[in-house]
């Protein structure tokens, strides 16, 4: 996946600087509601239901403070990515029991071809310790985008 293409999936309107919610369940709701108000999806409840079911399958927390809830849904018009920060941390049933401080939500229509490449690239980026540590300290969309861009250009 091209650098620019990857970067373009991040949108300042879909960036939450500090979730108002304090639980995994409420964070999923907050994300789905933002998707509805920004007209990315028609009805929040469909995505809430689906993301909850995805979590039943196994937690999407990958540890070290990061969770990536992701699913394909016909409720999605196009590949859509939401990034949300929770500086104080929230329990996401992570395998390493660490509280989650950054949540990346990815939803895509059933046959979207960018879904897996995007997810793969994101996981690769988060495996880089320096980038991950820097991301855990960002406070704004601008700062977030800077860290991502630097990882991609230095690759």
């Amino acid at each position, binding site marked *: 996946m091209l650098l620019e293409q990857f970067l373009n999936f991040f949108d300042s309107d879909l960036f939450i600087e500090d979730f108002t919610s304090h639980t995994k369940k409420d964070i999923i709701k907050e994300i789905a509601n933002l998707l509805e108000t920004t007209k990315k999806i028609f*009805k929040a409840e*469909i995505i809430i239901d689906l993301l909850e*079911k995805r979590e039943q399958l196994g937690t999407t927390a990958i540890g070290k403070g990061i969770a990536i809830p992701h699913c394909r849904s*016909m409720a999605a018009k196009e590949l859509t990515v939401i990034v949300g920060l929770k500086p104080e941390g929230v329990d996401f049933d992570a395998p390493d029991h660490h509280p989650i401080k950054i949540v990346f939500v990815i939803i895509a229509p*059933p046959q979207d071809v960018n879904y897996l490449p995007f997810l793969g690239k994101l996981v690769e980026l988060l495996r880089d310790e320096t980038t991950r540590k820097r991301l855990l300290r960002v406070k704004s969309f601008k700062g977030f985008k800077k860290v991502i861009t630097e990882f991609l250009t230095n690759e």
Partner: protein
Amino acid sequence: MNDILQNLVILQDLDEMISELNNDEIITQQEEMGFEINGLEKLIEAREELIKRIPLEIFNHYNRVRSRYGRAIAPVRENICLGCFIKIPTQISSREMGNQVLRNCENCGRYLYWV
């Protein structure tokens, strides 16, 4: 939004998720990325619960269309059924209006969801 339509959309997404779990390649990809996959039984239980909220004749139609085309619900954009690419004859001016009533495509029979 029409309740039955909402449940059908969730059912279709869930059915897709369940069929992905029967694909070893997808499971391996997910595990390599660091995601746990271990709750298939829970999804099947959730599906059983969901089906109870869908009238039998509609569920039967869903299954018939699904076995024919792979998916029983088609997204609609600009009044075109994206299942068969035929224009929907009824005048529908918004997503709200489209999703208020459970409708079938007159051409392919898929249930219609305005995305």
